């Protein structure tokens, strides 16, 4: 191996280590220094060195506001940055399948979605006196998007709450929020505001397998869903499909669309439900 390949740059490694520690969470300068030194045999890092490394990160476009004496990475130019509308898409996907997926699977998916959102830009704004425009925009967005917010007070208190509206009273600006009761928060008491994305959705645990037959020509052009497998193919070209873990109402609604090209085979109670659905629909027409 040549000498160049073996060489490495120490301060370059230290900048990266600092960046990686900050990616793991929001820490104070002291905490960052301690975390960095804990991996070293001797004390290498101090406030001055780490401060220089944080500046280096900022210089290359990484946004690191300091709120409550803690450093928050809110934007990495070479990292995944999701727009609000994209976070909405992920959240609506999560909401849409909350009742049709088993709890175990839903938790895995929800965790993935929150992880993706988590590594993308954090919606945190440092509140500077006399520069409230960004705060208003973030607050209004949270109201429209029906998202909770976290208010960071100058006295280090933190309040997770539901944003209601911006109110102006006697020349002062307040954020009207709700947490157990309505509260009016004086903007001058705040040092930061963060938009949260967490939601609580009831999920169900049952997993049901439904077997149905599709007849030609639909059978030939049918694209199996990811929760489906083809069990068998019959001589006339019909296929038998096993569908797992799909919301029953969605599934029956979809299978009805295939009209005479589809027949539910198992389980008996779902077959009976499908039959009843058809009979009830016919009753609408006096049949």
């Amino acid at each position: 191996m040549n000498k160049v390949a073996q060489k490495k740059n120490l301060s370059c490694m230290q900048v990266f280590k600092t960046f990686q520690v900050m990616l793991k969470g929001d820490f104070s300068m002291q905490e960052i220094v301690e975390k960095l030194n804990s991996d070293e045999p001797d004390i290498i890092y101090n406030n001055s060195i780490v401060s220089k490394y944080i500046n280096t990160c900022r210089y290359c476009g990484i946004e690191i506001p300091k709120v409550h004496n803690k450093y928050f990475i809110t934007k990495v130019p070479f990292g995944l940055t999701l727009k609000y509308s994209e976070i909405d898409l992920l959240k609506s996907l999560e909401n849409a399948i909350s009742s049709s997926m088993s709890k175990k699977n839903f938790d895995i998916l929800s965790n993935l979605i929150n992880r993706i959102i988590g590594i993308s830009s954090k919606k945190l704004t440092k509140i500077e006196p006399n520069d409230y425009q960004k705060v208003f925009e973030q607050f209004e967005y949270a109201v429209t998007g029906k998202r909770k917010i976290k208010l960071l007070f100058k006295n280090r208190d933190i309040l997770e709450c539901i944003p209601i509206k911006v109110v102006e009273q006697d020349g002062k600006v307040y954020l009207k929020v709700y947490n157990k009761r309505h509260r009016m928060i004086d903007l001058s008491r705040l040092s930061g505001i963060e938009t949260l994305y967490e939601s609580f959705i009831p999920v169900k645990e049952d997993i049901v397998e439904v077997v149905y037959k599709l007849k030609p020509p639909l059978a030939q052009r049918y694209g199996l869903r990811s929760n489906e497998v083809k069990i068998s193919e019959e001589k006339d070209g019909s296929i038998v499909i096993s569908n797992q873990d799909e919301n029953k109402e969605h599934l029956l609604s979809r299978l009805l669309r295939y009209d005479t090209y589809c027949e539910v085979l198992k389980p008996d109670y779902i077959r009976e439900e499908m039959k009843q659905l058809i009979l009830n629909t016919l009753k609408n027409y006096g049949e």
Partner: protein
Amino acid sequence: MLSAEEKLELCQISLTGLRALILCGLLIDAPRSIEEIKNKFVEFKLMAPDSPNDIIRIDLNTLRVMGFEITRATKKTGNKYILKDYPFALKIDEKEVSLLKNAYNQIKNDIKLSTLLEYHQLIKKIARYVTNDEIKEILYGISVLKSVDIDNLEELIKDCKYKRILKIEYQPPYSKNPEEKEISTKDVVIQNDKIYLYGFDINLKEAVTLNFNRIKKIISKKDSNEEFEIKPLVIKFLIKEFGVAGLTENEKIVEKSDEGFIIEGQYHNEFVARQRILSFGSTCTVLEPEDFKQHIIDLLQKMRAIYNE
């Protein structure tokens, strides 16, 4: 190379650290040759033009020590360094990607084409930050629009917005020879994972629904103020209660009664209307037109027969 002010500013930062961070960003963005990296470093005043390339090689080696998996720049890689993995890359496992696919498949039939397009771009964006090639491939394969020419589709959506008249080369399913058609565009819709252009065929003087994949070429397009009357199939039906399906853009409540809601839906063709009505199940009764109502009854009777056999 640097002004005094710039030098002072740089005293507050680690120049080598800055180089490493920028190198990291450059490699996440795309594979790079040593010349490309050097050009960027020179552009950002992080390196003098006559500095040796070994500086970059040492930076690359430092990243490798920090857990970055970077290939060597060989002929095989087009003399470029390729970033295969890095410590803060987005890690998604097989189970997670399969659940994401499952979730997408569950909702894709209930959302508009424009939303599907947004999901398509989002999934592509997420995939860019995944370093595992297999997972990346599965992610790229999730979108129902994966094999659609997105630029063409977006252009077509724009044409519909401005109601442009397109002269197209269209490959009909019943013939090997393509046909030229002149279409006054109306809407682009997705049905059963296929994209259709809905419009008015100026030569045939009738409403048509054309498979997007069969449009081989757009020969010309022009703006037009001429209004072509396209009569959609209008179905009036009673909904007792809204179950899993809400109303779509082309459906509206025209009356509320004790029995439920009377809805008027406008559909591009009978097939779309039939599927839509059946999907409501027993909560829905077709009121008019009579021939469509009779057609639904006939279908339901045949379906009943299947379960009575």
